């Protein structure tokens, strides 16, 4: 037995994303955002997308390109304060925005990836965040029911991968990516360094290969991946 080779050209991988698709994007700010896959998605241009991501990046980066191209119908996010365009489009009613507490977004995506239907939590109880969610008390404690999230496609950025799709993330670039890489019908990873199977010790794998469908090797990283110099 050997393991399948899932390496794939970026155009082919992204061409699986059709209009109206729900797309998960890894990343928390810059680290982990799959900028190259997002650029290719913008080039191919499917519209009416629902984007699930921690944040909306910043002006001129990542999710902002999708917003500028008018490809986004809905965002499911935890915080968009660093992207003025996202805030403006939300306030103008041009996009729908669903906010989640950050750990709740993580758990909803994980529940989808774990094949669960939902979970019960006391997070948000007693605040407007619980509004509209089914109340569910357990053992005398007040809780609400949160639903699992799944996507048609998840796009993630990995520091290292083998051709079978075992992924390793660098430092804080891990964040939502291992969760999203379990929660989509099709998972596409862009990869800084590609190795042969066996190049990653089996104990050090962050996302096991069976969850991943396509592995896209990156050339030189664009400017977006670099350190952001703020005032």
């Amino acid at each position, binding site marked *: 037995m*050997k393991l399948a080779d899932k390496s794939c050209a970026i155009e082919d991988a992204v061409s699986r994303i059709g209009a109206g698709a729900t797309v998960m994007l890894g990343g928390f700010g810059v680290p982990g955002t799959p900028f190259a896959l997002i650029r290719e998605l913008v080039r191919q241009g499917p519209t009416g997308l629902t984007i699930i991501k921690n944040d909306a990046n910043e002006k001129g980066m990542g999710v902002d390109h999708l917003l500028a191209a008018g490809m986004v119908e809905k965002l499911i996010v935890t915080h968009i304060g660093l992207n003025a365009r996202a805030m403006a489009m939300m306030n103008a009613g041009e996009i729908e925005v669903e906010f989640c507490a950050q750990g709740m977004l993580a758990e909803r995506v994980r529940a989808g990836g774990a094949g669960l239907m939902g979970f019960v939590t006391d997070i948000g109880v007693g605040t407007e965040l619980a509004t509209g969610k089914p109340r569910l008390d357990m053992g005398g404690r007040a809780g609400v029911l949160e639903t699992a999230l799944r996507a048609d496609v998840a796009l993630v950025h990995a520091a290292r991968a083998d051709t079978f799709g075992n992924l390793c993330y660098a430092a804080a670039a891990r964040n939502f990516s291992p969760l999203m890489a379990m929660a989509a019908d099709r998972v596409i990873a862009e990869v800084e360094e590609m190795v042969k*199977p066996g190049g990653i010790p089996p104990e050090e794998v962050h996302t096991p290969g069976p969850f991943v469908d396509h592995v896209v090797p990156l050339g030189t990283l664009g400017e977006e991946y670099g350190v952001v110099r703020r005032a």
Partner: protein
Amino acid sequence: MSDVRDRMVARAAREIAPGMVVNLGIGLPTRVIDHLAADFPVCLHTENGLSGIGPTLPFEQADRNLIDAGGAYVSTIPGSAFFDSAVSFALVRSGRLDLTMLGAFEVAQNGDLANWKIPGKFSPGAGGGIELAQKARRVVVLTTHLDRKGNPKLLEQCSLPLTAAACVNRVFTDMAVVDVAQGRFHLREIAEGLNVADVVGATGAGLVIPEGDLPRF
């Protein structure tokens, strides 16, 4: 293993398409591994936390920390990955397991499977079988056609507690290959040396028999 059982296992191995992620249950299913070529692309999964199982090892070469869910000492191959039990079953439940091969006490013509409990006699717990049966994209059963007392295992209805309802797609036995579809058993192939009447007589439910010659294994 008898000759016909070996042919049955070899036939079941052909059920695996290139690139699949497959979980082989304890017992007969595990033997399928012996029929997979070294260059055949397949990823074997075990519930206790490994994708990319390699060949079983003799005790002398075993790694004390490297077993499959049945307790056999196994090995890794290039590209193997270890993970915890939650990730392992996330893989099963979220649709990443293309195929599982399981043993059976009873299979019903609607696909119900019973393979974990005989009330009053045998109830050690279900382990990981429930989720494999309920959630693998395709569930095939490897079993003898008759139990040790000579009674059919393919039945109109299961009498034992179910592992999962309406989950089995195909059954490989020492007598036949039988599909489960539209609430009926469908005979697909017959073991060498047997005829249709042998299989019908050993099956505890109606069997849809196609016209013409059936393939042999």
